[in-house]
Structures are given as structure tokens and as C-alpha cells.
């Protein structure tokens, strides 16, 4: 029984991973790609690790999976935040059909500006 539930969890996780990577390919600029990638891939990997915990029970494998889950949940948004801040500071502009960019109006970029992407 546990094995079937674990397999279902793996399926949900792999599907979210797939849609996240599809968003990484389809979306037009870096910030939208970062949104799709970070949210979907983090959630999918969390589901896969929960599936490992259910599949194997509270053995050493399951407990390591929980540690890995907590670690990914803490670090993945932080990495996304660092990349978006670095990209904006290095002069990458938003998509050309964006509504508003308050950050550009109020904070100056460090380097010289590049052409609009």
C-alpha cells in the first residue's frame, strides 16, 4: 500500500517538474522564467522526497529525505532572490510588454546599462 502511494507522489512530483522546465523554455524574459522554474521545480522535488519518505518509512533513507526536503525548501527561494537581484543590478531589463518597473525608477543600477532585451 505504501509503495502505491509513494509511486503516486513520484508521479505528481515529476509532472510538476516537467511543467516547470516547460515554463523555463517558453516564457519570454528572465524574471518570468525564474518564477516558473523556482516554484514548480521546488514543489515537484518536495513531492518526490515526500514520496521517498512514504515509500521507505522511517528508515535512514526516509530521514535523509526529510533533511534534504527542509534544505531545498530553505535554499531554493534564496537562490532565486539572489539571481533576480543580480540580474537587475547587472542591467537586464524587463520584458518589453511589462506594465511597470518601480525598482528601475528608484534604485540605480551599478554597471552601465545594456540595451533592452
Amino acid at each position, binding site marked *: 500500500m505504501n*509503495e502505491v502511494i*509513494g*509511486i503516486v507522489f*513520484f*508521479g505528481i*512530483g*515529476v*509532472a510538476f*517538474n*516537467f511543467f*516547470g*522546465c*516547460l515554463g*523555463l*523554455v517558453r516564457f519570454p524574459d*528572465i524574471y518570468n*522564467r*525564474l518564477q516558473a*522554474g*523556482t516554484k514548480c*521545480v*521546488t514543489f*515537484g*522535488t518536495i513531492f*518526490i*522526497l515526500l514520496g*521517498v519518505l512514504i*515509500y*521507505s518509512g522511517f528508515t*535512514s*533513507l526516509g530521514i*535523509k*529525505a526529510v*533533511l*534534504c526536503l527542509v*534544505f*531545498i525548501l530553505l*535554499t*531554493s527561494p*534564496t*537562490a*532565486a532572490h*539572489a*539571481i533576480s*537581484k*543580480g*540580474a537587475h*543590478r*547587472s542591467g*537586464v531589463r524587463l520584458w518589453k510588454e511589462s506594465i511597470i518597473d518601480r525598482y528601475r525608477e528608484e534604485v540605480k543600477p*551599478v*554597471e552601465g546599462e545594456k540595451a533592452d*532585451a
Partner: protein
Amino acid sequence: METVLQVYFAVLFLCCFMCIYRIGRGPTAPDRTVAIDILGIVVVGFCALMAIITGKDFYMNVAITWALLSFIGTIALAKYLEGRGFDE
């Protein structure tokens, strides 16, 4: 049961190839950094499935180490993009 797991492996391979497409194609440097970050997290899930299909515990250690190293590498690349030193 085995067949289902192999289908999952195939889908994860497809995800990795999409990330590699974005690494090669991406117009700016931050795009490539994003793709490297996402690829790291996909590989963690891949290692977890690998631990299930082979029944060996040490693949989970590989997953934990991969998550740590991928995070540190991404932070270093982001600092580099921002144009600052690594020790801030």
C-alpha cells in the same frame, strides 16, 4: 512498478534536456544561471528516484551533497553577476 519508474526517469531526462537547451540558447548570462540552478534541483529529485529503484542508501547522500553544492555555486554566480566580491 518498474515500468512506471522508468517512465518517470524518461520525463526527468526530458526536463534536464530542456534546461540544457536554455543554458545553450539563453540570450543573457542570468538566463544561463537560472537554468543551472533549476538543473541542480532536478538532479536532486533524480538521485532520490535512483535511491528507490536501486535500493541503495548512498544515493540520498549524493542528493544532499548536490543540493548544498548547487546552492553555493548559484550564490557565487549571482554575486558575480551583481559585480561584487564573494566575501560580502
